[in-house]
């Protein structure tokens, strides 16, 4: 569904965040990106979502190359992606309901009524139907993140990208968010997830890619990565975080 070919990204301060990164994601596949801090996980995800422009390389969506130079067209192609941020980024000036309906109405041209119905469906799904008229500032971090996931789902995405969705949360709220993500996995949603929750990555992933200094240095099934890889750096990292 998504093919990433030889992606490179160097920031203006000469930091080479991503080097020759290639990855193919099949429909229904769940892929985790793990690795030490600063290894380029977020930058890869942000390049895929169009929040950063790669210096070279290709991203193909269903076989069609994204033209980075044509921003409008690229954004249209990326409409099949839902993105969930570490810091939720709910629109602060809108209620939960408005957060969920703004894009379906303005981007997809849905009627207000249809968008609201869809929003209620996904709010129920993340267990927050009673919060529809609250402003984000009145919600806990875990609730905000569940709303953010619902907001992405309202656009009916084919693939979900998660950048450390639980890193900004207190421990007792992590579970409620992971449960929502688990539900999506069970429904067969395609996803790429960057996470420091190793046990969760191990449980839900079909494939795990380990990044270091902007490159994938090891990739395989969770069982392979956690139990049989001979790669010393991967082993050292896992020993440290598990």
């Amino acid at each position, binding site marked *: 569904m998504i093919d990433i070919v030889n992606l490179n990204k160097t920031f203006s301060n000469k930091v080479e965040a991503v080097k020759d990164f290639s990855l193919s994601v099949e429909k229904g596949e769940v892929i985790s990106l793990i690795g030490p801090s600063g290894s380029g996980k977020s930058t890869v995800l942000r390049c895929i979502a169009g929040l950063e422009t790669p210096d070279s390389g290709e991203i193909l969506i269903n076989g069609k190359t994204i033209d980075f130079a044509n921003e409008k067209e690229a954004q249209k192609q990326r409409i099949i992606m*839902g993105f969930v941020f570490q810091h939720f*980024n709910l629109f602060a*000036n*809108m209620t939960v309901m408005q957060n969920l309906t703004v894009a379906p109405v303005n*981007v997809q041209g849905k009627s207000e009524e249809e968008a609201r119905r869809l929003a209620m469906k996904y709010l129920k799904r993340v267990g927050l139907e009673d919060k529809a008229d609250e402003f*984000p500032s009145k919600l806990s971090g875990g609730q905000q993140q569940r709303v953010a996931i619902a907001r992405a789902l309202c656009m009916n995405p084919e693939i979900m990208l998660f950048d450390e969705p639980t890193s900004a949360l207190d421990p007792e709220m992590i579970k409620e968010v992971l449960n929502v993500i688990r539900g999506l996995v069970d429904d067969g949603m395609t996803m790429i997830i960057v996470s420091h929750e190793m046990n969760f990555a191990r449980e839900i992933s079909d494939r795990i890619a380990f990044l270091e200094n902007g490159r994938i240095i090891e990739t395989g099934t969770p069982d392979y990565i956690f139990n049989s890889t001979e790669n010393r750096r991967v082993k050292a990292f896992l020993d440290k975080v598990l």
Partner: protein
Amino acid sequence: MSLLIAAIATAMGLILGTLGAAAKLSRSKFLNALASVYVEVFRGTPMIMQITFAFLALPALVTLILGRPIRFNPLITGIAAISINSGAYTTELIRSGINGVDKGQFEAADTLGLTYRQKMRLVILPQAFKQILPPLVSEFITLIKDSSLLSTIGVVELMKSATTVGANYYAYLPPLTVASGIYLVMTLVISAISKMIERRLAVSD
């Protein structure tokens, strides 16, 4: 009249300021430079100089170009001058308001597929506006007071009326006291209204 002048100038200033801020934040180097020159020139020279310039010097220039004498309407010229001046201040206000909005808000709008205009209109500007409302109101209040400068080019506003009345009756104390009182009432009422709006906007905090 003073209130009307200030209201029109603030509204025009808001429009000019939005355009100015858009130019400053755009990727075009030319527009950046143009907006910077605009802001610096009109913030760096006294308002009374700008008003006088527009009323006395500009007609001469236009006369030179058109080849026939022309006289500007003092009221329209004055409002235009104040508006353009206010636009320069508002440009900086709006720009800093937009820069004050969290980067994540822009990015979330991008990933949801909102166009640049939708992102600005629905997400960024409402949040920026909330932040700049207090300084915008103080700009409005400044303009009410500055509208008195138009008396120098013969516009009959509050200040001018007061001095005219004073001259007619050979007594300046009563009319000037009354006029000062009116300025004060106008600015106090506006302050109170803005506090009310701020409280209503605070629901999303």
